[in-house]
């Protein structure tokens, strides 16, 4: 059994009647970093909350390391650490008390040395006797991470881990994620930034409107998603793309005044320079040029178009 989490046929309809998840099937492999990528409202938090036991699923089954999250919830949940999206913390407890409480809640014997290590790794040791209410936003987020790691989880969920987080914490967090992965911890993070999925994940699942649109290795996905477009405003309209340029994927606007070149910015030879040389050779002049990454929205649109 290689997958550590297996989600099959999971749906969620909230009490309001809103269908947040439609038939989710997803397997997370042991030891991987998996990014769940999707726009706000896609259902990322709902899906994570179901696996962690915070939200009841409407149908389907989920197993964590072979343990059903319903029948065998103790075994399933004790493997999981969760860092939620919102900073929700009991403000009046000290850092030390809060983190030890989390460890006890998950049924682990107290272990001051381990908790100290977690706090030191997250630069929280100096604050161990401070109340949560006195911590800055960044420190609070570190505390949430410390709570999730306090009981030595085998699977760590990070819900939008870098939303509103400063550069230093972001880097610390990525360093921590890599260390955990080396220890064999499986990490699932949600994000609505492609760059974040790109920087961290081994595999990426794209979710939109409660459906997983595709699951792909990162390299493969970036090849699909990492496309760039260059728009050229022509001095004189063209009737058609000249034959000599047909090996480029060029698109001519209806009035012939604009050429759009779509290329893969991950490739070693994106062909921008050669296209410009060839345009010159063909005597085609342009007034202006503009390049841009395809936005997440455009990517979703194109992915949705590809899917039958």
């Amino acid at each position, binding site marked *: 059994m290689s997958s550590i989490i297996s989600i099959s046929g999971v749906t969620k309809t909230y009490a309001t009647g809103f269908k947040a998840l439609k038939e989710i099937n997803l397997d997370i492999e042991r030891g991987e970093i998996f990014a769940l990528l999707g726009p706000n409202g896609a259902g990322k938090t709902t899906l994570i*909350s179901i696996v962690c036991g*915070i939200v009841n699923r409407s149908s389907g089954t989920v197993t964590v390391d072979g343990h059903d999250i319903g029948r065998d919830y103790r075994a399933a949940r004790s493997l999981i650490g969760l860092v939620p999206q919102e900073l929700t913390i009991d403000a009046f407890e000290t850092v030390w008390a809060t983190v*030890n409480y989390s460890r006890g809640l998950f049924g682990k014997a107290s272990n001051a040395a381990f908790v100290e290590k977690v706090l030191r790794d997250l630069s929280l040791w100096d604050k161990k006797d401070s109340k949560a209410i006195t911590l800055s936003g960044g420190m609070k987020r570190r505390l949430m991470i410390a709570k999730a790691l306090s009981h030595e989880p085998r699977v760590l969920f990070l819900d939008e881990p870098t939303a509103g987080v400063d550069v230093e914490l972001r880097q610390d967090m990525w360093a921590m994620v890599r260390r955990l992965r080396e220890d064999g911890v499986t990490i699932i993070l949600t994000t609505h930034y492609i760059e974040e999925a790109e920087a961290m994940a081994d595999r990426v699942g794209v979710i939109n409107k409660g459906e997983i649109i595709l699951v792909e290795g990162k390299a493969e996905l970036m090849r699909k998603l990492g496309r760039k477009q260059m728009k050229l405003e022509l001095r004189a309209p063209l009737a058609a793309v000249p034959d000599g340029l047909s090996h480029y994927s060029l698109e001519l606007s209806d009035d012939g005044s604009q050429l759009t070149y779509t290329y893969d910015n991950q490739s070693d030879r994106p062909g921008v320079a050669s296209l410009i040389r060839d345009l010159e050779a063909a005597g085609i002049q342009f007034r202006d040029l503009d390049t841009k990454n395809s936005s997440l929205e455009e990517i979703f649109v194109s992915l949705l178009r590809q899917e039958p």
Partner: protein
Amino acid sequence: MTLRAAPNFRAVWAIYRMEMARAFRTVLQSIISPVISTSLYFVVFGSAIGSRITEIDGIAYGAFIVPGLMMLSLLTQSISNASFAIYFPKFVGSIYELLSAPVSYLEIIIAYVGGAATKSIMLGLIILATAALFVPLRIEHPFWMIAFLVLTAVTFSLFGFIIGIWAKTFEQLQLVPLLIVTPLTFLGGSFYSIHMLPGIWKTITLFNPVVYLISGFRWSFYGKADVSVGVSLGMTLLFLAICIAIVAWIFRTGYRLRN
């Protein structure tokens, strides 16, 4: 199989300890405020009314009101402790951790209700000690006195827990104690014997469950009761059973805890 059935005692202990730590953090407030209010009751009721009513059922008025005073605080504090303890994490969102932890509903309830009940029992004993400074006390049935104290604290902590789960706003959290429990307690014979009431009111009062608690509790002190002790005990257990039934239903449905 055995592993997954194993109860998570460490979680119960962690929650209980956290709840107790919360009380000890505000230890001055938790001790001083009942001491002051008890003293005030003695000044107002004991001295002012006590000069008119010297004794009831052969018990000095000041001593007569002690069990009622303890019950009054026990009921209101059990409810407010337990309802707040579970409402607060719901309100700030930190309940996610409880819901994602390998704990059963039963363990959650034992920990929270145990914490709330312990606090209100301690409060009851503080009131008792304060009262002893003002009036001579005697406790004829110490076992039953402790039994009524614990049963009432647990029952009303459970009741508070239910309110805390049900409440969606702070207003709702305070509504039940304010509109129902406080009037029932004041009309429950804390400061008088229900035999002193005119005919029809005496009958109406018998529908007030608090009457049975106070009567039974007072019997454990002085051996005198408004209604028979067996009935008092029965009513207390009945109310406990009702609370347990509601909580069991919450277990099964996940009512207002999990979406």
